[in-house]
C-alpha cells in the first residue's frame, strides 16, 4: 500500500516534482517535442476553492500542475496566453464512485432450473465465496476509455476514484484522471478505498441469497481475516490477505436506502469500522438515525422523473410514497446538509454524467447552496479519498484539473467551454463561440426579415419570417470559428439563399447568393428589449421563489401512506368501565377500570382515578392485552437464507423492515408483538427477531428490549425441498433421514467447538457453531417449523440426547398426535387454527389440534405466518372454541399470554396486570367475535392505532395523493420528462419465500 504523504513533506515534494515529473521511463521515438504545457489563462474569475475566489485573475499552469492563480496577474514569459475574459474557472469535479475504465460486470446467467451453485467458480487460492473479491485491484484492471472519459469531462469531471462494481467486497479503488495521455500518467494512486456492497454482483453462488446472509458473511469474513493473520494457518487465502491489506483504507459501502445504510453501519460498528455510505438518495426520510450512525455519505442525485399520471387508473399503481419521493428527492441534499451530516455527491446512478447539471440545479432550487454543492464535488471527495494534496482546489502545486465556464455550474445553466486535465486542455465548446441573440432584424439584398432564435447555446435554432406574417421558415445554420454559414428558403421563393457572415461588433454581416444565384449582401442586427440577460434574471427570481414554496407532500414516519406525522407519546390513560380480559386469576372483569402510567399498567380494578389521566369511556367495550403473533414474516426485507442446510449465523434482526404497511394494518387487528422468523427452507434457519409493532420507529427501536434470543429450525417437506421442482435435488437433505443427521452433526460439532473455545484453544470464532452452542447452553431457544409426528418426536429425542429442550414447535399441525410427549418434554405448540390440505404433510392436520394440545397441558398458541391472517388472530382464537370447545378465556390466551410464555416475555406482556407493559387493545365487541374491531391499540402506553384517526388519515392521504398528482400533471404540462407509471408492491413473505425464486409460493 502506498504511504499517504504527510503535509510536512509537501513543499519538498513539489520542488522536485517540477523538475522531475516530466521524466518518464518510456523511450521516445524521434526528436523529443513534448512541451511542458505552460499556459496562462487570463481575464478569468478563479474559484480556487470553495472559500477563495479571485476576480479578473490569471491562472498559470505548467507541466500539468497549477503554478499560480493571481488577481490581475501577468502572463509569464514563455507561457501560452489563453484569453478567457469574463469566464469562470472552477476545480473540476471529482467522482468518488466511478467505474471508469473498469471491465463490464457480467451477471451470472444461472437460472433456477440450473439448480444451486454450492461452490465458488473463481479459480485460484481465493475466498470460498465468489462474491468476496477483496483481491480485485482497480489499478491493475484500469485502462483508459476515451469515450467514457469524454462523457465525464464534458460533465465537468477531471478525476475519478474508480472501482470494479462487482461483489460484496469489491477490492481496492484507484484514482485516475480523465486525461488520455497514457495509462501510466493518468493513474494517480492505487489502493484509495475498499469498496463493499450488499450485492453479489457476478457471483452465481447460492450463498448468500438474502440480506441477512450477506451481513452474516461480512461478519464472518472480519473474524476469518483476524484469525488468518494471527498465526500459521493450514490454508493460504489470497482473499483474506487482500482483505487485511485493505482495512486501513476508507471503507465505502453501497446501499439502496436509509434502512440499509443503518444495516451496513451496524455491521461496521461491530468490528470498529466506520463505513462511508454510498446512499440511495432517500436520507431525508430518516436524518436523525443516519446522523447518529456517524457515517459520511456519498449521495446520488437520482431523482425520479415525473410519473405520467394522465391515465387515472394507471396512476393508481403509483403509491403515495412514490409521489412523495418524486417531490422531495431533489431536496435531499439540502436536508442532509442542514442536518450536518458530512457528504459528497456522486453522478453514479444517473443515466449519463451529463445529467449531473440539471440534477444539481434541481437540488439547488430545493435549497442546496452553491458552496455546499461545490464542496460536495471538489474538496469533499478529495478529502474523503485522501487525495486533497493533489486535486480538489486550484492552489499552487495541485494538478491542473479545472473547467472554464460562463457561470456557476452548481447553480446555473452553465456552459463548460473547456475541461483541463493534468494540464491537457479539452475543448468542449469554443471559448469564442458567439451566443446568438434572441431576435434579429435581417436584411438580405432588398428583402427584410425577422430572425428568431430559440434554444440553448450550442443547439440554438433560428426561424425566419416577414414582419407581420406568422409563417416561419427554418434556417439551417452552422457556426465555426466565428463564421456563420446559413441556408434558408423564404416563403414564396423557389430556391435557397446561402449566406456566410462574421460578427461585426453589433450583429453579423456578410454576403451570399439568393435563390437565383445572385450575390446579395447580408446584415443581421440584434433586436433590443428582450435580451437573454433579463430573462435569466427573472428565471433566477423564479428559482428563489420556489425555494420558499411549501411541499405538497407530508413527511411521515415511515414516509408512506398511513405513516405518523409524529411519534406517539406515552400518556397517563384511564380506561373506564370496560370488560377487562386480564388473563390473570381475576379472569374477565366486568365494568372495570385500567390505569396506564409511564407505559406500564398501573392499576386494574373498579373505581380507579387519576387526575392527570386521559379518560377513555370503554362502556360496552372489551379491553385486552395486545395480540402476540408467535410466527410472522411481516416487516422483513428477506425471509430465507436457506442456501445451506444450516444458516444459524444469520440474524433476522438485521433485516427488520420498519417501512412495511402491514405493521400498521396489524395494529388495526390488535397485534402488538410479533416474532419475525427465518423461513423454513433449511433445517437450521436463522436467528429470530422479536419486535413490538412500534409503527414509525426505526428497525432498532422496534426490537423487544432484553428478550431471550430464539432461532428458527424446520422439518419436513420444505427443508427436503420436496416442492421446489426437480432442479432442487442437490442440497442436503432430501429426506427426513438426512434431516435428523444434519441436526446430530451440527450439535456434535457445536459441542466440540464450545469445549475448545472454553478451553482457550486457538480457534477461529465461528458464528454458526457459536449460535448452536448457545442452544446447548440454554442461552438460545428453538422455534421449530414442524408438521408430522415422527419428526416432532425425532427432534425432541435428539434434544434430550444433547441435554436441551425444544422450546416451541411452530405450525405443529400433528401436535395433537404427540401432545402428551410434548407436554412431558416441555415443548410449546404454536399452530394454525384450521389450515390443512395445502401439501402432503398436512393431510392429517385438524382444526382440533389446538384444543387437544391444550388439553394435554401443552402451552398452545395460534399464529399467522401470514400478513392477512395476522390481522384477525382474535377470530382465529375463537376457532379453538368452535373446534374442541376450549373455554373462551383459555382460547383467548392462545393469541396473548401463551405466545408470551413461549417467547419468555410473559413477565412483560400477555396479560393485564399491574407492572406489565401497557400493550392494550380496546375492542368494540367480544374480542373473539367475527364482528369485533380493534378501535384503539396501545404499545408501552403509546397509542399507535386509533380507528377514528385512521379514518381521518385515509381521507387526508386521498387529498395529498390528489395534490401530488395535480403537481405531476403541472410538471408534465410544463415540459418535464415523464416516466410511465411503475408501481411498487410488497412481496408477501411466507415460510417458503425464497429471495431468488421469482414466484409466490403459499405452501407454508
Amino acid at each position, binding site marked *: 500500500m502506498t504511504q499517504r504523504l504527510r503535509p510536512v513533506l509537501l513543499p519538498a515534494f513539489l520542488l522536485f516534482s517540477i523538475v522531475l515529473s516530466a521524466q518518464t521511463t518510456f523511450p521516445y521515438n524521434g526528436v523529443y517535442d513534448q512541451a511542458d504545457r505552460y499556459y496562462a489563462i487570463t481575464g478569468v474569475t478563479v474559484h480556487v476553492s470553495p472559500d477563495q475566489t479571485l476576480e479578473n485573475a490569471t491562472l498559470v499552469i505548467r507541466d500539468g500542475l497549477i503554478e499560480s492563480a493571481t488577481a490581475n496577474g501577468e502572463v509569464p514569459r514563455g507561457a501560452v496566453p489563453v484569453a478567457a475574459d469574463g469566464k469562470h474557472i472552477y476545480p473540476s469535479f471529482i467522482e468518488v464512485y466511478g467505474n471508469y475504465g473498469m471491465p463490464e460486470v457480467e451477471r451470472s446467467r444461472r437460472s433456477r432450473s440450473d439448480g444451486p451453485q454450492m461452490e465458488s467458480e473463481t479459480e485460484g487460492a481465493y475466498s470460498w465465496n465468489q462474491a468476496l473479491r477483496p483481491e480485485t485491484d482497480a489499478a491493475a484492471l484500469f485502462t483508459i476509455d476515451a469515450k467514457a472519459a469524454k462523457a465525464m469531462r464534458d460533465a465537468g469531471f477531471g478525476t475519478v476514484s474508480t472501482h470494479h462494481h462487482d461483489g460484496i467486497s469489491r477490492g481496492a479503488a484507484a484514482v485516475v484522471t480523465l486525461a488520455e495521455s497514457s495509462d501510466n500518467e493518468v493513474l494517480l494512486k492505487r489502493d484509495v478505498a475498499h469498496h463493499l456492497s450488499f450485492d453479489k454482483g457476478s457471483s452465481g453462488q447460492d450463498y448468500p441469497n438474502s440480506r441477512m446472509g450477506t451481513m452474516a458473511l461480512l461478519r464472518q469474513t472480519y473474524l476469518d481475516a483476524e484469525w488468518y493473520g494471527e498465526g500459521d494457518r493450514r490454508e493460504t487465502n489470497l482473499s483474506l490477505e487482500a482483505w487485511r491489506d485493505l482495512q486501513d483504507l476508507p471503507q465505502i459501502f453501497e446501499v439502496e436506502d436509509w434502512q440499509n445504510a443503518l444495516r451496513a453501519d451496524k455491521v461496521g460498528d461491530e468490528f470498529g469500522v466506520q463505513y462511508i455510505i454510498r446512499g440511495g438518495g432517500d436520507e431525508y426520510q430518516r436524518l436523525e438515525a443516519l446522523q447518529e450512525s456517524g457515517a459520511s455519505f456519498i449521495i446520488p442525485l437520482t431523482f425520479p422523473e415525473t410519473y405520467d399520471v394522465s391515465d387515472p387508473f394507471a396512476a393508481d399503481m403509483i403509491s403515495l410514497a412514490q409521489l412523495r419521493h418524486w417531490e422531495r428527492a431533489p431536496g435531499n441534499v439540502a436536508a442532509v446538509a442542514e442536518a450536518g451530516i458530512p457528504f459528497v455527491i456522486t453522478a453514479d446512478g444517473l443515466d449519463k454524467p451529463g445529467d449531473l447539471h440539471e440534477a444539481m440545479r434541481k437540488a439547488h432550487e430545493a435549497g442546496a447552496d452553491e458552496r455546499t454543492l461545490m464542496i460536495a464535488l471538489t474538496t469533499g471527495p478529495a478529502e474523503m479519498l485522501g487525495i486533497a494534496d493533489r486535486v480538489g482546489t486550484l492552489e499552487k502545486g495541485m494538478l491542473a484539473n479545472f473547467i472554464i465556464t460562463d457561470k456557476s455550474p452548481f447553480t446555473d445553466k452553465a456552459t463548460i467551454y473547456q475541461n483541463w486535465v493534468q494540464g491537457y486542455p479539452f475543448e468542449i465548446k469554443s471559448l469564442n463561440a458567439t451566443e446568438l441573440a434572441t431576435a434579429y432584424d435581417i436584411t438580405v439584398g432588398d428583402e427584410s426579415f425577422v430572425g428568431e432564435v430559440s434554444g440553448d447555446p450550442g443547439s440554438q435554432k433560428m426561424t425566419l419570417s416577414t414582419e407581420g406574417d406568422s409563417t416561419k421558415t427554418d434556417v439551417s445554420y452552422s457556426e465555426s470559428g466565428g463564421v456563420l454559414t446559413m441556408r434558408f428558403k423564404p416563403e414564396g421563393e423557389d430556391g435557397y439563399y446561402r449566406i456566410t457572415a462574421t460578427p461585426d461588433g453589433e450583429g453579423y454581416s456578410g454576403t451570399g447568393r439568393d435563390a437565383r444565384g445572385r450575390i446579395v449582401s447580408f446584415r443581421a442586427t440584434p433586436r433590443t428589449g428582450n435580451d437573454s440577460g433579463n430573462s435569466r434574471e427573472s428565471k433566477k427570481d423564479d428559482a428563489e421563489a420556489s425555494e420558499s414554496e411549501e411541499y405538497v407532500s407530508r413527511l411521515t414516519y415511515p414516509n408512506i401512506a398511513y405513516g405518523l406525522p409524529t411519534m406517539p407519546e406515552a400518556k397517563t390513560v384511564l380506561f373506564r368501565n370496560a370488560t377487562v380480559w386480564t388473563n390473570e386469576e381475576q379472569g374477565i372483569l366486568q365494568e372495570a377500570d385500567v390505569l396506564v402510567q409511564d407505559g406500564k399498567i398501573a392499576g386494574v380494578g373498579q373505581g380507579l382515578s387519576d387526575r392527570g389521566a386521559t379518560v377513555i369511556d370503554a362502556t360496552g367495550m372489551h379491553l385486552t392485552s395486545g395480540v402476540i403473533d408467535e410466527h410472522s414474516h411481516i416487516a422483513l426485507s428477506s425471509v430465507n437464507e436457506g442456501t445451506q442446510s444450516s444458516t444459524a449465523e444469520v440474524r433476522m434482526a438485521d433485516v427488520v423492515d420498519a417501512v412495511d404497511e402491514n405493521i400498521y394494518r396489524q395494529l388495526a387487528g390488535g397485534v402488538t408483538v410479533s416474532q419475525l422468523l427465518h423461513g423454513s427452507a433449511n433445517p437450521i434457519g436463522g436467528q429470530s427477531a422479536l419486535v413490538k409493532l412500534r409503527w414509525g420507529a426505526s428497525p432498532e427501536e422496534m426490537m423487544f428490549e432484553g428478550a431471550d434470543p430464539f432461532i428458527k429450525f424446520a422439518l419436513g417437506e420444505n427443508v427436503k425441498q420436496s416442492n421446489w421442482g426437480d432442479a432442487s435435488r442437490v442440497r442436503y437433505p432430501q429426506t427426513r433421514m438426512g434431516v435428523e443427521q444434519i441436526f446430530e452433526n451440527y450439535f456434535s460439532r457445536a459441542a466440540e467447538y464450545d469445549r475448545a473455545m472454553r478451553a482457550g484453544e486457538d480457534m477461529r470464532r465461528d458464528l454458526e457453531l457459536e449460535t448452536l452452542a448457545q442452544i446447548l447452553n440454554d442461552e438460545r431457544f428453538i422455534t421449530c417449523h414442524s408438521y408430522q409426528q415422527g419428526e416432532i418426536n425425532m427432534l425432541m429425542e435428539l434434544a434430550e440426547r444433547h441435554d436441551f429442550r425444544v422450546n416451541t414447535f411452530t405450525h405443529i399441525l400433528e401436535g395433537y398426535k404427540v401432545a402428551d410427549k410434548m407436554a412431558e418434554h416441555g415443548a410449546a405448540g404454536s399452530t394454525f387454527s384450521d389450515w390443512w390440505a395445502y401439501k402432503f404433510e398436512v393431510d392429517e392436520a385438524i382444526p382440533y389440534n389446538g384444543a387437544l394440545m391444550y388439553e394435554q397441558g401443552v402451552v398452545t398458541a395460534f399464529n399467522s405466518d401470514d400478513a392477512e391472517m395476522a390481522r384477525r388472530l382474535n377470530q382465529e382464537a375463537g376457532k379453538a372454541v368452535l373446534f374442541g370447545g376450549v373455554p373462551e378465556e383459555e382460547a383467548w390466551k392462545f393469541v396473548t399470554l401463551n405466545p408470551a410464555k413461549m417467547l419468555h416475555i410473559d413477565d412483560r406482556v400477555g396479560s393485564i396486570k399491574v407492572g406489565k407493559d401497557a400493550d392494550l387493545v380496546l375492542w368494540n365487541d367480544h374480542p373473539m367475535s*367475527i364482528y369485533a374491531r380493534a378501535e384503539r391499540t396501545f404499545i408501552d402506553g403509546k397509542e399507535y392505532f386509533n380507528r377514528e384517526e385512521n379514518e381521518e388519515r385515509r381521507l387526508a392521504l386521498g387529498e395529498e395523493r390528489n395534490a401530488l398528482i395535480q403537481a405531476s400533471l403541472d410538471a408534465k404540462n410544463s415540459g418535464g420528462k415523464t416516466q410511465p407509471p411503475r408501481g411498487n408492491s410488497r412481496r408477501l413473505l411466507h415460510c417458503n419465500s425464497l429471495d431468488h425464486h421469482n*414466484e409466490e409460493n403459499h405452501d407454508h
Partner: protein
Amino acid sequence: MITSIKYHFALLFWVAACSCVFGQNPVPARAQQSPFAVTGATVHVGDGTVLDNATILVSNGRIESVGAGGDVPAGYETVDASGKEIYPGLIALNSQLGLVEINSVRATRDDREVGLMNPNARALIAFNTDSQVIPTIRSRGVLLAQATPEGSLVSGTSSIMQLDGWNFEDAAVKADDGIHVHWPNRNSYNWLTGRIIPNERYDEQERELEAFLEQAVGYCGRPEGDGERLLKFEALCDVIDGGAKAYLHAEEARDIQAGVLLLKRMGASPVIVGGYQAHLIPEFLKREGVPVILGSTQALPAAQDEPIDQPYRSPALLADAGVEFAISHEGYWQQRNLPFVAGQAVGFGLDYEKAVEAVTLTPARIAGIDADYGSVETGKSATFIVVSGDLLDMRTSNVEHAFIDGREIDLDNKQAELYRKFKEKYDRQTSR
C-alpha cells in the same frame, strides 16, 4: 332421523360409526323417505327476511311450507329446533373444491388445463365426490359449490355441485352453468424486484380474447353441419345465447367495464368475479344489470394506499349502492370459512341478513338455480342447515343438521374422525 338426539349423543353415534368407515367419506344420505317438520327455529330465509319460531314442513325433498308458528300435520316427524337458527345451505361460488385434493401434489390437481383458451374444459368431469375435503366443508354449512377451472384467458366451464353425491353425475345440480373469462392483466408483477410494471402484452392479449369470442359468435351462428366441428367455439354457444353465464374475472374498474361491454356485444350475460374495484362503478353495474361475485373479504388491501379495511368494507359499499353481489372465498379447503368471510363484512357495516343473502340466495340467482336453491321458501328444495348459534360468528357457529333435498347428510368427516381417534388415545391414558 336423529331429531331428538343431543349433540353428545350424536358424538357417540359417530364413534360407533367410525370404526367401520374410517378412512372413507361418509355414505351419501338416502333420498327422503318420510315427511318431517322442523319447528321453533328462527329462519333466515335468504332473501333478507327472518321468521321467528317458524315451522318448516318437508316432504319428497321439498319445502311444503314455511311460516311462523303453524301446526305439524300427522305423520310428520318433528325436529325440535327451538332456540336455533336455520339458514339456506351456503353456496360457495368460484371454488376448486373437488378439483384439488393436495395443492402441492401435482397428481391431485385437476383445476387448470394447458393453453389460454379452454372454454370446453368442464370442471364437472374432474369433480371428485370422494374428495376428503368435501365433508369438512359441508360440516360448516356449505352445501353447494361451483366447481371452477382456473387459468387464463378462458379457463373453462364450471358446474354447480351439491356436496353429498356418489359421483359427479348425481352431484351436479346444474351442469355447465357458465364459462370463466379472465381479463388479461394490465400489469405484471415482478416478485423478485417487487415492482409492478405494465404488461407489455396486454393489448395483444385483449385482442386475442376479443377475436376468439368474435370467432365463437360467428361459429355459433352457422347452420348446423356447415364446416368442421370446433369444440372450443361450440362450448361458447350456450353462453352466447345467454343460456349459460359468462363469468368475468376482473378486479379493476376499467377491466370490469371493458369486459362487460365486450361480453354483452357477443350476447352473453356477464357476472363479475373478484370485483375489487366494483364499488367504484355502481352506476355502470346497475345500468348493465351485472351482478358481482366479490372475492374474499378476508384479504389484504390491493395496494399500500388503499384503505386498510377495504376488502372488509366492499360488501357494505356495494349494498349501499344497490349493486347485486355475492360473497365468495378463495380455494377449496378454505371454503369452510365462507360463513366467516360473510360475517367479516357484517363487522364492517353490512346488514346481517344481506350477508346471509350474499352466500345463499344471490349466488343461487347468479348461478341460475334459485328456483330450487338459495332460500328457505315454500316449493323449493329442502336444502338448509340448523345451527345452534350464529352461523357467521365462529364463537357459536355450531352446525347441527344439514339437509340437501330433504336428505339429512352426515356431518362427520376425516378431521372429526382423527379428533376422536386421538381423544381416545388420551382418554385411555387418563383411565389407565
